[in-house]
Structures are given as C-alpha cells and as structure tokens.
C-alpha cells in the first residue's frame, strides 16, 4: 500500500505538469519556513551562541561555512542522481532538475571556499593550503561550473541534459573524496565535527544553532530548485495546451 503510494507519487512528480501544480501548492508555505529557519539559525549562531574556548569568536563563521559546504555536497549528490535518471530513463523532470540544482550548489561551494579561507587566516595562519579537503572542494566548484557550462554549450535541451547528466553522475566520485579526505590522508583541515553515527564533538549550546542554520540552508536550496524547475518547465512546455491555458488564465 505504502509502496504503491510512493511509486505513484514518483511517477506523478515525473510529469512536469504535475510538478508545476505540486510546487505551486508547496512553495507558498515552504518559502517562509525556509527563510525563518535560516534567519533563526544564523542569528542564534552569530550573535547568541557562546564563544569557543580556543578560537574565541572567530569560530562563528562555522554557522555559514558548514551549512554552505553540506548544502553544496548534498546538492551535487542530488544532481548526480538526477543525471543518472536522465541518462538511463530519459525522464524529462530529471533533465529539468539537473539544470535547476546546479547554480545554487555552485554558489554554496564558492561561499564554502571563501568562508573557509577567511576562517583559516586567523586560526591556521593561512588562507589556503593545497591539502586534500580544500583541493577536492575546489574541484567540486569546477564540476558544478562544468555541468552548467556543458548544458549551455549544447542547443538541444534534451541532449544537453544527457551530457550534463553524465558529467554530474561521474562527479559524485569527487563528493566521496571531499567527504573522506580528512580521514584517509593527513590534512590541515580538521575532521568532521558532526557525525552521522556517534557523538558530535561540539557543545549542545553551539550545536543546535548549527543544525538549524544547516536545515535553513537546505530548505532555501529546495525552494530555489523548485523555482528554477518551474521556470524551466514553462520554457520547455511553452507550446503545450496546459501552459497556454495557464497563461490565458493570468498565470494562476
């Protein structure tokens, strides 16, 4: 029963028209929730969380650096999955998703690199070292830019999506390297603070604002992807009956 519902939902969301209707219903409440979560997390972290015993206040950039980095990595994995669906199943909605996911992810990667450099100077004493974590994160930025560029280089949107999808899929290997670089080889960058299994090495008073700002960033990313996907759907389906009807009805 549940499986059938999930399967039906998946197939329905695979239809651009249904996705457009679905996102029209979701966006009006998801957008304010995302904004509020993000603002609460950031303000709590930057202004109210206690200072660190070692780094004082300079550790606070973690409330921007970690949400941006995690969003960038998750976004890339999502784009890789969309790429695989686009290449194997030729699903239209997956093709649209590759295009919708890339720009925000590239921006988050850039934010992660810049905030990381700004954090590195007062703590490590350097903006940049070619260590495995930083280098692989820079490669992630190039992968995102490559996916965007490849998509724009091919005129036919379906062919463009397949080429970009293949690149997105292959690049997921790099995400694995980013994640585990700090465990496999020795780096200047410290290991992960938040762990999927086991206890996190951050005080709860600092952890909750961090988790909230991460959630806020992910939700903002989801909102951005939906808005971009809707624009792309309208542009691709502009000749179809339902879009013409929509326009005739004043875009409602």
């Amino acid at each position, binding site marked *: 029963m549940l499986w059938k519902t999930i399967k039906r939902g998946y197939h329905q969301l695979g239809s651009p028209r249904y996705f457009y209707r679905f996102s029209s219903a979701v966006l009006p409440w998801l957008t304010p929730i995302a904004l509020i979560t993000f603002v609460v997390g950031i303000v709590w972290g930057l202004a109210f969380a*206690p200072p660190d015993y070692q780094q004082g206040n300079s550790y606070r950039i973690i409330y921007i650096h970690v949400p941006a980095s995690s969003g960038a990595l998750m976004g890339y994995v999502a784009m890789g999955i969309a790429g695989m669906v686009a290449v194997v199943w030729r699903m239209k909605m997956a093709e649209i998703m590759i295009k919708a996911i890339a720009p925000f992810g590239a921006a988050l990667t850039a934010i992660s690199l810049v905030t990381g450099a700004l954090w590195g100077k007062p703590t490590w004493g350097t903006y940049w070292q070619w260590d495995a974590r930083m280098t692989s994160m820079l490669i992630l930025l190039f992968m995102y830019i490559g996916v965007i560029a490849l998509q724009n280089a091919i005129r036919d949107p379906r062919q463009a999506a397949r080429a970009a999808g293949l690149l997105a899929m292959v690049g997921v290997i790099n995400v694995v390297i980013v994640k585990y670089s700090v465990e496999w080889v020795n780096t200047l960058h410290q290991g992960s603070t938040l762990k999927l299994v086991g206890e996190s090495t*951050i005080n709860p008073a600092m952890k909750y604002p961090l988790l909230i700002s991460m959630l806020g960033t992910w939700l903002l990313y989801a909102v951005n992807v939906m808005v971009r996907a809707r624009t792309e759907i309208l542009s691709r389906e502009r000749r179809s009956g339902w879009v013409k009807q929509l326009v005739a009805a004043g875009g409602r």
Partner: protein
Amino acid sequence: MNPVRKQRLAIVAVILVGLAIAVGLIFYALRQNINLFYTPQQIVSGEAPLNSKMRVGGLVVPGSVKRDPQSLDVQFTLTDGKGSFVVHYQGILPDLFREGQGIVANGTLISRQRFEADEVLAKHDETYMPPEVKDALEKAGHPAADKPDSSMGKTAS
C-alpha cells in the same frame, strides 16, 4: 524495465564502477603526495628526504617551547608519540600555537633531529565548547579537557 534501459543502466554502471576503481587506485598510489605533511615517525624512520622543501606536522611537546628573549627565534619539539624532532623557526607564531596543540610547519629537514621552518601553521581539532565548559571539565579532571589533537598522526604506509 525494457531492454534498452537495462542496457543503458548496465553501461552507466560499468562506467561508474570503472572510474571509481581508477580514481581509487590513483588516490592510493599518490597517497604520500596527497598527504599534506610528513609525520614525526616518518622523519625519524628516514622516510622523509633530507635537505628538500617539505611540510611536517605533529603535536608540540608541552614544556619544549624555548623562545630567545632577544629575537623572534623559537624552537620546540614535535612529536606524534612514535618519534620526535626539534623545529627551529624565526617569526611570529599563529595565535592558536600552543603546547600540546597540533601544528604544520613548512621548511627544510636539516637532519633527522632538526627541521628549519619558514612558516608555522596551527591546526585546530574538531572540538568546540564554551570556555566555562572547558574550565569545568578541567576542574573535574575529565580526560576530554586535554585530549591531544586526534586529527594528527595519520601515517601513510
């Protein structure tokens, strides 16, 4: 799944698995080059080359830091529990440089016991807590309060 999709899925799977293996092998082969620094163990055992530019990393031995009162000269012992050597440096140390703390130094290995640094970077670990909590932990004699930097001393072999 129809045969065409099945075939496409197989091709995609082969490409991905092949690439993952290739990247894994490259990563494994270049492991020492990807490592940012040599560990004290590698220095002492002779794995690190003499008289060439390199980075070393380790923990500053508590009580080993000697500053020259007339100049910016400083020297300290670096260890990872499996070997140790002395680092000489002339310049301003980063704020987070402390005894017991992990550091990465860039410079030249003169001998197995002596490293001349041009640049000293401080590592910090992934533990964050308010100063009050740190004090409370220290008072209670909790081992977590002065846990050595866990991110140090990964050796590639």
